[in-house]
């Protein structure tokens, strides 16, 4: 098993390498990256100064080395607008994004899992059809539109909830719902198919053969086994959520990573954009690694292979 872990870590490093390479290449693809790294409205002299400062006149592999080296020590450049290191800005906003993502994730699981189970157990009947419609809507409605419509209803028409900002639980409600909506549908689908698979397994068959009441068959034997892939996906999705929350955070002016990225775009603050993307990608690679290793530790088949 150690072999597996080592291999898996190596694979992650390869992914990180490719990720950084991709970003590096694309930034240079435009021809003159100096235009990106400089504030809008800079003169030619400024551009030249930037070129020298960032070593853009040096051979590519040297540039790449600097690129990687600075990221490795956490130097992601400095924001033009805020005049603070990007990393600091990121860490400042991260807790807000985590809060939003965690709430959205809870919502998506609270809705998704029971619906999925009901859909599987009542295949072809009312709950299953409801589930299918729900899943379809989840995939077809953009999260930010859900957010906008919610604002229309609950802030403008009913006046119950605040439409932007953060601070109280009420501020959290609508953004979390909007963000979690899509994932609720995804989790529902996975729960349903996982449950159906488990319901067709031999040990569920044996449970029925033992004469166990149906509630026990589903609640004990099927449930736990069916949840395993769902929880795995949820773990990964948490990180994904943080990264795709940009539109929801923009709609609700929620001060998280997504909003930071939005500011980066709007103010043409390239270091922020680059920083957020790099960290986001790295986070996802890492969480995939953690989940895979966790699996290796608890799944007996891989364990016994050592």
């Amino acid at each position, binding site marked *: 098993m150690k072999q597996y872990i080592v291999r898996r870590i190596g694979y992650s490093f390869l992914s990180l390498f490719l990720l950084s390479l991709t970003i590096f290449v694309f930034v240079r693809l435009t021809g003159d990256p100096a235009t990106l790294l400089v504030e809008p409205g800079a003169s030619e002299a400024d551009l030249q100064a930037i070129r020298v400062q960032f070593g853009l006149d040096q051979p590519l592999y040297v540039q790449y080395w600097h690129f990687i080296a600075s990221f490795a020590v956490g130097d992601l450049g400095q924001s033009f607008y805020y005049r603070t290191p990007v990393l600091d800005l990121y860490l400042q906003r991260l807790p807000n994004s985590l809060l939003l993502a965690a709430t959205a994730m809870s919502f998506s699981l609270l809705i998704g899992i029971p619906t999925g189970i009901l859909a599987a157990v009542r295949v072809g009947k009312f709950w299953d059809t409801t589930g299918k419609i729900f899943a379809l809507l989840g995939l077809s409605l953009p999260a930010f539109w859900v957010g906008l419509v919610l604002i229309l209803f609950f802030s403008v028409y009913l006046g119950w909830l605040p439409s932007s900002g953060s601070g109280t639980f009420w501020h959290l409600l609508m953004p979390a719902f909007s963000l979690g909506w899509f994932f609720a549908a995804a989790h529902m689908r996975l729960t349903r198919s996982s449950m159906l698979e488990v319901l067709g397994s031999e040990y569920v068959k044996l449970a029925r053969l033992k*004469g166990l009441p149906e509630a026990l068959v589903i609640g004990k034997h099927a449930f736990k086994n069916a949840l395993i892939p769902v929880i795995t996906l949820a773990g990964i999705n948490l990180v994904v959520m943080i990264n795709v929350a940009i539109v929801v955070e923009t709609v609700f002016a929620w001060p998280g990573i997504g909003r930071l990225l939005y500011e980066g775009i709007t103010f043409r603050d390239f270091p922020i954009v680059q920083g957020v993307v790099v960290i986001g990608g790295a986070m996802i690679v890492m969480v995939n690694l953690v989940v895979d290793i966790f699996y290796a530790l608890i799944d007996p*088949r891989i364990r016994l292979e050592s």
Partner: protein
Amino acid sequence: MPNEPLLSLEHLSAHYVSQQGRRVVRAVDDITLTLNAGETLGIVGESGSGKSTLALTILRLLPPAARIVSGRMMFEGEDLLDKSDAEMRRVRGKRIAMILQDPMASLNPLFSIGDQVGESIRVHEGASRASAWTRAIALLKSVRIPSPETRVTQFPHEMSGGMRQRIVGAIGISCEPRLLIADEPTTSLDLTIQAQYLNLLSDLQKEHGLALIFITHNLGIVAKMCDQIAVMYAGRVVEKGPVTRIFNTPAHPYTKALLNSIPRMSDNRQRLTAIEGQPPDLASMPPGCAFAPRCAMAFDRCRVETPPEFILDEGRTARCWLAAPEAEAETVPARSAMA
């Protein structure tokens, strides 16, 4: 010998009907079988002959696409088909138990051995966790698993294949059923372990007075373990009766062919004797006897009319026109089993 058979199936049929209602698969067709308490019945046949479906039919656990369309299933004097869902659940595991083929797949990987062995006891007899746990240890001991006290806390993946099969056997007898159905119980075991396991089942049977139904394609097991045998082909029972007599003088051509195809050391022939052809597609069966296309002794009537079960002598029947009174030269009185 008790007066009433423990289990009596009478003209039992179960069909799979496709959603459009056009394809009807007669998975279990007109089955009549009896089994007395303490007896062992072997149900033999190729894959797809309906033997496993028969077991599920008895326990009324067919998939939703299947329906029991006719017949009776008498168990201890009651018709199982008359029972409600709740009543049937009380029968399963407690009065009729079943062992499945693949022990690794039958055990839930997330729960301990003790939990799974004691589960039926907790549900059917209302035992507490603690007493079910103790009973589980005792059951593991009775299926000859060493150091049961430690094993009982472990998980299925920590057991070997042979042990898992024993555990599944322990689950089967946990509530002292009257009938135990074993579906291909040795197929997934190593040869060396098979004999041990069969001996175990035999001993358990004697200890607990169990009736046993063995579903298998292995005639050797039948010869060793069973009193009665029923041969199935294409969903029907083609021959049944006491094992020794059928092995010595098989009446149905399929049974003869099956027995012939077992390689023997004394054989000087170079080639294995296989049965020509393929089993029929149960959705589109030929008219007449299902075995006729592959039967060396088939004649015209076989291809037109399905033979009923003819009683050859006490306890023996064969579903073959060769067993009909007109075809037989002997004066064995053969009455049709159909009224």
